[in-house]
C-alpha cells in the first residue's frame, strides 16, 4: 500500500539527491534530537542543581544562625541561677564580672551578657566593644546615679580602671528585653532594636530571675546577639551563583540579615528602626519579599521549607524560603534566591556549543554524503550509460574500475568482462554467420548447379522412360490380335508400378500353335523394360523358327538373355513360363508363379512350375533343370497366368492379396468370358489395395478353351 503510494507519488527517484537527502535528514534528525535532549537535560539539571543549591544554602544559613541563637538562652539560664544564688551582685555591682567574663570568652558571637534588677533597674554586664571587640564591664546603680560606668578588665576578668561613663541614666526595667521576659514569663526574644551600648541593631534573649523561693521576681538576665558583620560576610561568601542572594527576615518582614551591603536600619540613634525587606534598596530582596507576601498573605503562614519560582523582568528566579524558629519565640525566614540565568548561562553556552557542533556535523555529513554519493554514483552512472549504449547495440563498452569502492570495482570489472565476452561472442558469431553464409551460398550454388543437371537428367530420363513405356505398350499384344486367336478366349492386362515395368506377357500364333508367355524381370525402370523387350523378341524369334522342344526353347532364351545381361553389365534376370497350345493341349515349361488351371465348373487346380525351369539370365546353363508338363483342356476349362504383383500386393493393414483370394475370385467368376474374369479379378484387386500405392507391376492373362 505504502509502496504503491510512494510509486505513484514519486514515480522515479534520482539516486544522488536521494542519497544526500537521506544522509542529511538522518544527521538533522539525530542532531536535533540530541540538541533537544541535551537542552532539556540541561534544564532539568539546572532545576535540580538550583534546588539542591538552595536547599544546601538555606540549610547552611540555618546552621549558622542556630550557632548564634542557641547559646544566649543557655547563658541566661546560667546567669539567672547565679543571680538568684547571689553570685552576681547586680544591685551594687561589687562582684560577678569574672563570671560574665568567662562566658564572653567562650561565646564569641555574644555581644553582651548582663542582668538587670527588678528593684530600681540596676544593671550589671560585660559588653564586647563593637569597634575593637575588647570586653568591658558596665554597671549602673544607685551609687552611679544610674549612669552606666564602663571599666576595663584584666585577663582574669577583674575590673581595672574606669574607662568612661554613659551620658544618660539607664533603667533596666525600661528596656525591651526586660519587658519581653516579663511578658513571656519565661525565656523570650526581643524584637530587633538598637542596642543602648553599641547603637547597633540587636536582639536579646532574656529570662526572668526569681529568688530562691521561686516566687519573688528579682530581675531579668539577658544576652545580646548583634547580628554581626561576620554573618553578613558569611552570607556574602556563600556561593549563591553569580548574582544570587540570601537574606533573613523576621515575621514582620524586617530584614535581619542580608547578603548585600545595604544597612539593615533606617534612621539614627534611638529613632532607628529595622528596615523592612519590602523597602529594601535591593530589587531582588524587594521582589522576593513581595512575591512571598503575594503567595502567602503574611510571613507567619510559611511553616515549611518551600521551593518557589518567580520572575523579575521576565527572568526566572529560583527561590527557597526556610522558616527559622526556636522555642523562645524566634520566628524568622531564611530566603535564598538564585536567578535562573546564573545557571542557564552555562546551559546556554552548552546549547550554543551543541548547536555549533551540530552545524559542523551537518556540514561534514552533507559534504561526506555528497562526496560518497558522487563516488558511488559516478561509477554507477558510467555503468548505466555503458549498459544503455550496449542495449542500443554498441558492444564496445569499457568502464573504469578505479572507483573508491571495491564492490563497484568488482561490478565494473565484471561488466567489462561481460562486455568483452559479449563483443567477442558477437564477433565470433558474425564470423560464423559469414562463414556459414558463404558455405550456404556455396552449397546453394552447388545445389542450383546440381538441380540444373538433375532437371536436365530428369528431362532426359523422362524422355527415355517415355520412349521405353511407349515401346512396352507398343509391344504388348493388341486386343484385336487376342480376338483373332482361334480356339481360345484370351484377355490380358498389365499395369506397371512405375512408368516402365519389368512384367511381360505375349500371345503369338503360328500355324495353329499358340505360344503364350508371361515373365517378370526383376526390378523396374528402363533396364527392366529393355530386358523385357529383348525377351519378347527372343521368344518371338524362337516361335517364328517353330522351336517345339521346350528345353531347346528355354535354353536358347536363357543363353540369349544371359549373355546380353552380361554385356549390359546388368544385375537383372527374369522368371518366364511358356505355354504352347495346340488342339486343346497345353505344354508348360519354365519356372514362374503357380499356374492356375480352371475347370469349366469353376474348380481351380494350382500347377507348380518350380521344377520346370530356373530364372533366366542368372546362369548360362540351365538345361538339366528344364522340364515340361502337358495339360488337356476341355471347352470351358482355362488357364490363368499372373505375376507376383497380384498375390503379393499389400493393403493398408499389411495383408497380402494372396493366391487363395485370387483363386476364389476366379472360381466365382469363371462362368463369364475371359474378359469378364479378368475384369472381376482387377476390380477385386483394386478394392483390396484401396488407396495403397502399387508396389509392383501387375499382369494377368486369362485363357479359356472355347
Amino acid at each position, binding site marked *: 500500500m505504502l509502496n504503491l503510494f510512494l510509486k505513484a507519488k514519486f514515480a522515479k527517484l534520482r539516486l544522488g539527491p536521494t542519497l544526500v537527502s537521506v544522509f542529511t535528514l538522518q544527521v538533522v534528525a539525530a542532531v536535533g534530537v540530541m540538541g533537544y535532549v541535551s537542552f532539556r537535560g540541561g534544564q532539568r539539571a539546572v532545576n535540580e542543581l538550583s534546588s539542591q543549591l538552595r536547599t544546601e544554602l538555606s540549610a547552611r544559613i540555618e546552621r549558622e544562625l542556630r550557632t548564634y541563637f542557641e547559646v544566649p538562652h543557655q547563658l541566661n539560664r546560667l546567669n539567672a541561677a547565679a543571680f538568684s544564688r547571689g553570685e552576681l551582685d547586680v544591685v551594687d555591682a561589687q562582684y560577678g564580672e569574672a563570671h560574665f567574663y568567662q562566658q564572653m570568652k567562650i561565646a564569641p558571637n555574644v555581644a553582651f551578657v548582663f542582668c538587670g534588677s527588678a528593684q530600681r533597674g540596676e544593671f550589671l554586664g560585660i559588653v564586647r566593644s563593637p569597634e575593637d571587640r575588647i570586653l568591658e564591664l558596665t554597671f549602673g546603680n544607685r551609687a552611679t546615679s544610674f549612669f552606666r560606668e564602663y571599666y576595663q578588665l584584666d585577663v582574669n576578668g577583674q575590673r581595672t580602671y574606669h574607662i568612661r561613663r554613659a551620658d544618660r541614666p539607664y533603667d533596666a526595667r525600661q528596656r525591651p528585653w526586660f519587658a519581653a521576659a516579663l511578658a513571656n514569663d519565661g525565656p523570650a526574644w526581643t524584637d530587633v532594636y538598637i542596642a543602648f551600648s553599641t547603637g547597633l541593631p540587636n536582639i536579646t534573649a532574656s529570662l526572668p530571675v526569681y529568688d530562691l523561693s521561686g516566687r519573688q521576681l528579682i530581675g531579668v538576665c539577658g544576652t545580646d546577639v548583634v547580628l554581626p558583620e561576620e554573618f553578613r560576610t558569611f552570607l556574602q561568601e556563600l556561593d549563591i551563583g553569580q548574582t544570587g542572594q540570601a537574606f533573613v527576615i523576621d515575621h514582620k518582614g524586617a530584614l535581619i540579615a542580608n547578603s548585600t551591603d545595604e544597612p539593615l536600619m533606617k534612621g539614627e540613634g534611638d529613632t532607628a528602626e529595622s528596615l523592612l525587606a519590602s523597602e529594601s534598596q535591593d530589587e531582588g530582596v524587594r521582589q522576593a519579599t513581595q512575591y512571598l507576601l503575594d503567595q502567602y498573605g503574611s510571613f507567619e503562614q510559611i511553616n515549611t521549607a518551600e521551593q518557589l519560582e518567580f520572575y523579575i523582568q521576565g527572568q526566572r528566579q529560583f527561590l527557597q524560603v526556610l522558616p527559622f524558629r526556636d522555642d523562645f519565640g524566634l520566628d524568622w525566614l531564611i530566603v535564598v534566591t538564585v536567578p535562573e540565568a546564573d545557571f542557564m548561562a552555562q546551559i546556554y553556552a552548552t546549547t550554543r556549543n551543541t548547536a555549533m557542533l551540530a552545524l559542523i556535523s551537518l556540514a561534514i555529513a552533507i559534504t561526506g554524503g555528497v562526496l560518497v554519493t558522487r563516488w558511488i554514483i559516478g561509477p554507477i552512472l558510467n555503468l548505466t550509460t555503458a549498459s544503455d549504449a550496449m542495449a542500443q547495440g554498441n558492444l564496445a563498452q569499457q568502464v573504469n574500475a578505479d572507483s573508491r569502492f571495491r564492490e563497484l570495482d568488482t561490478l565494473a570489472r565484471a561488466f567489462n568482462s561481460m562486455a568483452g565476452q559479449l563483443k567477442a561472442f558477437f564477433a565470433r558469431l558474425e564470423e560464423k554467420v559469414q562463414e556459414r553464409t558463404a558455405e550456404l551460398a556455396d552449397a546453394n550454388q552447388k545445389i542450383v548447379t546440381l538441380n540444373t543437371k538433375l532437371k536436365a537428367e530428369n528431362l532426359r530420363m523422362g524422355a527415355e522412360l517415355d520412349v521405353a513405356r511407349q515401346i512396352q505398350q507398343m509391344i504388348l499384344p493388341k486386343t484385336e490380335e487376342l480376338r483373332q486367336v482361334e480356339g481360345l478366349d484370351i484377355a490380358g492386362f498389365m499395369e506397371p508400378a512405375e512408368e516402365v515395368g519389368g512384367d511381360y506377357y505375349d500371345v503369338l500364333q503360328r500355324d495353329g500353335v499358340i505360344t503364350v508367355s508371361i515373365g517378370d524381370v*526383376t526390378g523396374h525402370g528402363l533396364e527392366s523394360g529393355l530386358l523385357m523387350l529383348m525377351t519378347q523378341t527372343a521368344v518371338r524369334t524362337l516361335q517364328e523358327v517353330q522351336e517345339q522342344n521346350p528345353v531347346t526353347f528355354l535354353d536358347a532364351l536363357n543363353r540369349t538373355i544371359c549373355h546380353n545381361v552380361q554385356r549390359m553389365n546388368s544385375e537383372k534376370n527374369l522368371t518366364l513360363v511358356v505355354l504352347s497350345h495346340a488342339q486343346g493341349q497345353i505344354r508348360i515349361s519354365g519356372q514362374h508363379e503357380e499356374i492356375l488351371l480352371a475347370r469349366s465348373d469353376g474348380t481351380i487346380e494350382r500347377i507348380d512350375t518350380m521344377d520346370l525351369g530356373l530364372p533366366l539370365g542368372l546362369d548360362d546353363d540351365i538345361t538339366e533343370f528344364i522340364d515340361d508338363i502337358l495339360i488337356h483342356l476341355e471347352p470351358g476349362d482355362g488357364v490363368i497366368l499372373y505375376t507376383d504383383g497380384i498375390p503379393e500386393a499389400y493393403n493398408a493393414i499389411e495383408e497380402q492379396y494372396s493366391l487363395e483370394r485370387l483363386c476364389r475370385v476366379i472360381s466365382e467368376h469363371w462362368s463369364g468370358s475371359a474378359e469378364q474374369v479378368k475384369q472381376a479379378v482387377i476390380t477385386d484387386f483394386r478394392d483390396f489395395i484401396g488407396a495403397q500405392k502399387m508396389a*509392383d507391376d501387375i499382369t494377368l492373362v486369362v485363357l479359356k478353351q472355347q
Partner: protein
Amino acid sequence: MTGQEIKGDNYSVQYNQETVTIQFQGKLALSGVKDYGPIHDLLYAVVADAPAQMTLDLRQLSFLNSSGISMLSKFVLALRKKEGVQLVVVGSNEMPWQGKSLRNLKKFLPNLKLEIE
C-alpha cells in the same frame, strides 16, 4: 567382421559372428539391386572370411520380393566357385514364398544345405 545389423522400416538383417549366421527378419521389399547393396555387401564380406559353414536364417523373413530373390540367387551362384564354404539356408514352411523360391537355391548350388522347418 563384428556383429552387424542392417535395419529398415520393416526388416532387419543381423550378422552373428560366432555362429556365422545371418538372420533375416520382417519383410524385404526393396525396390532394386542398388537398395539391396548393403545386404549384398554383408553376404560377400562374410564369405570373404572363408568360414567352414555359413548360415542364412530366413525363418523370420515373411516376404522377399523378386529383386531380393534375385540377389540371393546370384549369391548362391557365386558360392559355386567358392569351394570350402558350406552354405546352410534355414527356412520355414509358414512363409509362403520360401517353399518354392528356396528350392531354386539348391538347384544353383547343389551342396547347399536347405533346412525347411
